[in-house]
C-alpha cells in the first residue's frame, strides 16, 4: 500500500508526497510547497519522495519504509504491509480494539502506554517489564476501563478467539481470569472436554497477585465477568496470592450472585470457602466444578479417574510387571510450569523428595542440571533452559534433548505434558512420540523399558487435533490420561507399587 498518509504518521514527518515524477505529480508537489532543486531532474519514470520533516534520521526511516512498501508488490492474498507506527496501524484498521505486544520488555512500557491512550485493550506477552511499569500501565488501564493483560501473559481467549498460546475452546457460560498460562489452558481445555464452554478467558500476567500490584487485573477481569450476561460461572486461577490480595479478591465474591470457583493452586482452601467460593484441589477439579455449576448441579470434589477402572488397573499391573528392580526413579519433563508444579504438589512426599528447577522446597533445588539422580521434575520453560532457544512449547527439541540425557536405566516412569493449540508447535505429540521411540530403542538394548505417562492440554478443535495427538502418543505405547491431575495420579499409583529407592 503506497500511501502518503501512512508515511505521514511516522514521528517527525509534517508532510510527504510519493509517486512517479510525472508532470501532474510534480505540479501537486509544487502546490504543497514540497519542491526542491532535485525535482527538475526527475522524469516520469523516476519515483520520488518529497517530504517536509525534522531530521535526516527521519528521512532515512521514511526511505526505508517506502522501499519496503515498493518491494512488497502485492500477492493475491492482500496486504503484506506492516505499518511502523501505532497511528499507521489504526489507519489501516480503525476498528481495532486489542493489541498483542511481544517486543523486548524494556520498550514495552512506552508502547503499551500509547496503545492504552488510543483506547486499545492490551495483551502484553513480553516479560522483563519492571514492577513499576506494570503498576503504571495497569492503573492507567483500570482508569480507562481497559484490559492490560500481562506482562508475561501468554494465554487469553477473547470472544472465542485464542490469543498467543491458547486453545480453541467451545463457547459457553464459564468465564475465566487466570494468572498462569498453562494453568489457564488446562482448565479451559478441560471445560471443553467435559462438555461445556467458555465465555471469556482473561489473562492477568504472572505477577498480578503480588502485593505490589494488588491484583488489579484480576479484579478488573472479575468485574467484567460479573457484569457479562454471557458469563454464568466465574473461575479464578493463580498461584497462591499475597494474603491481603487474596482477601480483596475473595471479598468480591460476595458482590455477585454468580458462583465463583477459585483455584489458588495449593493455597488456603478454608479462606476460599469462607468467602462463599468453591476451592479446588487441582486444575481438573476447577474445570469439573465449573462445569457442574454451569449445569446447575452441585460441585463435588474430584479425585481418581474418569477413565474406566479396569483400564487403569491394567495399566498399573502392566507397568509394575515390566519394570526391573533397579528402575525406581521418576522423571517429569514438563513444558508448562504450572503443570509441573501441580504434579509435584499432587505427588507430595508420597514417593519421596522430588528435585526440580522449580522445587517445592529449597533443599530440593537441582544444583546440577546435567547429572540427575533420584526423582526429578523439570519445568523446561524456565529461563535456564530457554537461553537462546525458543520455549519448548514452540520448539520441542529442548525436551527431545532432555529425553536423551535424563532417561537412563534407573528411570521407571516418565511423566510429560503435551500442550497443543495456537502458539504451540505444529505437532508436539508427533515430536514427543519420536523422542520416546528413540529412548525406548536405547533402553531396549539394556533389556529395559520405561513407562511413559502423558496428558494432552488441548481440544479437538485445535489445529493439531486432540484425537490425532492422542493417537500419535498411544502408537508409541504412551499412556494418555485426560488431564494432568489424572496422569499424576496414575504415576503415583505405579510409583508406590515399586520397591523404594
Amino acid at each position, binding site marked *: 500500500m503506497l500511501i502518503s498518509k501512512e508515511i505521514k504518521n511516522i*514521528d517527525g514527518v509534517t508532510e510527504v508526497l510519493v509517486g512517479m515524477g510525472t508532470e501532474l505529480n510534480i505540479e501537486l508537489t509544487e502546490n504543497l510547497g514540497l519542491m526542491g532543486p532535485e525535482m527538475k531532474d526527475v522524469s516520469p519514470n523516476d519515483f520520488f519522495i518529497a517530504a517536509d520533516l525534522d531530521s535526516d*534520521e527521519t528521512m532515512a526511516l521514511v526511505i526505508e*519504509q517506502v522501499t*519496503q512498501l515498493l518491494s512488497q508488490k502485492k500477492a493475491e492474498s492482500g496486504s503484506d504491509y*506492516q*505499518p*511502523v*507506527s*501505532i497511528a*499507521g*496501524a489504526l489507519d*489501516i*484498521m480503525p*476498528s*481495532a480494539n486489542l*493489541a*498483542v*505486544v*511481544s*517486543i*523486548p520488555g524494556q*520498550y514495552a512500557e*512506552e*508502547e503499551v502506554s500509547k496503545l492504552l491512550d488510543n483506547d486499545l485493550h492490551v495483551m502484553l*506477552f*513480553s516479560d522483563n517489564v519492571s514492577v513499576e511499569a506494570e503498576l503504571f500501565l495497569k492503573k492507567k488501564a483500570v482508569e480507562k476501563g481497559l484490559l492490560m493483560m500481562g506482562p508475561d501473559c501468554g494465554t487469553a481467549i477473547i470472544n472465542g*478467539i*485464542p*490469543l*498467543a498460546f491458547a486453545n480453541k475452546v467451545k463457547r459457553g457460560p464459564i468465564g475465566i481470569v487466570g494468572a498462569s498460562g498453562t494453568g489457564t489452558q488446562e482448565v479451559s481445555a478441560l471445560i471443553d472436554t467435559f462438555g461445556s464452554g467458555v465465555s471469556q478467558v482473561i489473562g492477568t500476567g504472572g505477577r498480578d497477585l503480588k502485593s505490589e500490584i494488588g491484583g488489579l487485573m484480576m479484579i478488573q477481569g472479575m468485574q467484567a465477568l460479573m457484569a457479562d450476561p454471557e458469563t454464568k460461572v466465574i473461575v479464578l486461577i493463580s498461584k497462591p496470592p499475597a494474603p491481603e490480595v487474596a482477601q480483596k479478591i475473595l471479598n468480591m465474591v460476595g458482590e455477585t450472585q454468580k458462583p465463583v470457583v477459585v483455584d489458588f493452586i495449593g493455597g488456603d482452601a478454608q479462606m476460599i470457602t469462607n468467602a462463599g467460593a468453591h476451592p479446588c484441589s487441582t486444575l481438573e477439579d476447577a474445570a469439573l466444578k465449573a462445569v457442574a455449576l454451569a449445569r446447575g448441579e452441585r460441585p463435588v470434589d474430584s479425585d481418581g479417574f474418569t477413565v474406566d477402572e479396569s483400564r487403569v488397573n491394567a495399566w498399573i499391573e502392566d507397568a509394575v510387571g515390566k519394570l526391573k528392580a533397579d528402575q525406581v526413579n521418576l522423571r517429569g519433563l514438563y513444558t508448562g510450569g504450572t503443570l509441573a508444579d501441580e504434579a509435584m504438589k499432587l505427588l507430595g512426599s508420597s514417593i519421596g523428595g522430588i528435585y526440580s528447577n522449580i522445587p517445592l522446597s529449597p533443599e530440593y533445588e537441582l544444583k546440577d542440571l546435567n547429572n540427575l539422580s533420584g526423582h526429578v521434575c523439570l519445568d523446561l520453560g524456565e529461563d535456564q533452559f530457554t537461553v537462546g532457544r525458543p520455549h519448548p512449547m514452540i520448539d520441542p527439541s529442548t525436551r527431545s534433548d532432555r529425553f536423551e540425557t535424563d532417561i537412563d536405566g534407573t528411570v521407571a516412569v516418565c511423566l510429560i505434558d503435551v500442550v497443543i493449540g*495456537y*502458539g504451540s508447535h505444529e505437532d508436539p505429540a508427533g515430536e514427543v512420540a519420536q523422542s520416546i521411540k528413540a529412548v525406548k530403542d536405547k533402553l531396549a538394548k539394556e533389556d529395559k523399558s520405561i513407562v511413559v505417562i502423558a496428558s494432552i492440554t488441548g481440544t479437538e478443535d485445535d*489445529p493439531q487435533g486432540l484425537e490425532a495427538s492422542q493417537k500419535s502418543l498411544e502408537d508409541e505405547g504412551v499412556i494418555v490420561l485426560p488431564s494432568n491431575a489424572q496422569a499424576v495420579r496414575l504415576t503415583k499409583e505405579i510409583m508406590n507399587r515399586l520397591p523404594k529407592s
Partner: protein
Amino acid sequence: MGLESFQKDLISQEVDAVQMNWRPVAGGNPKMIALLNRLKG
C-alpha cells in the same frame, strides 16, 4: 507488535489483524531514546 506468528494464527482464523513492523526508536540506542524522551517532555 512483535512475534509474527501471533498475527498469522489470527489471520488463519479469519480474524482481522495487522502486523506492525516495530523497531525501537533511534535504532534502540538507549542514549538517543533518553534524549528523545526528554524532548517530548
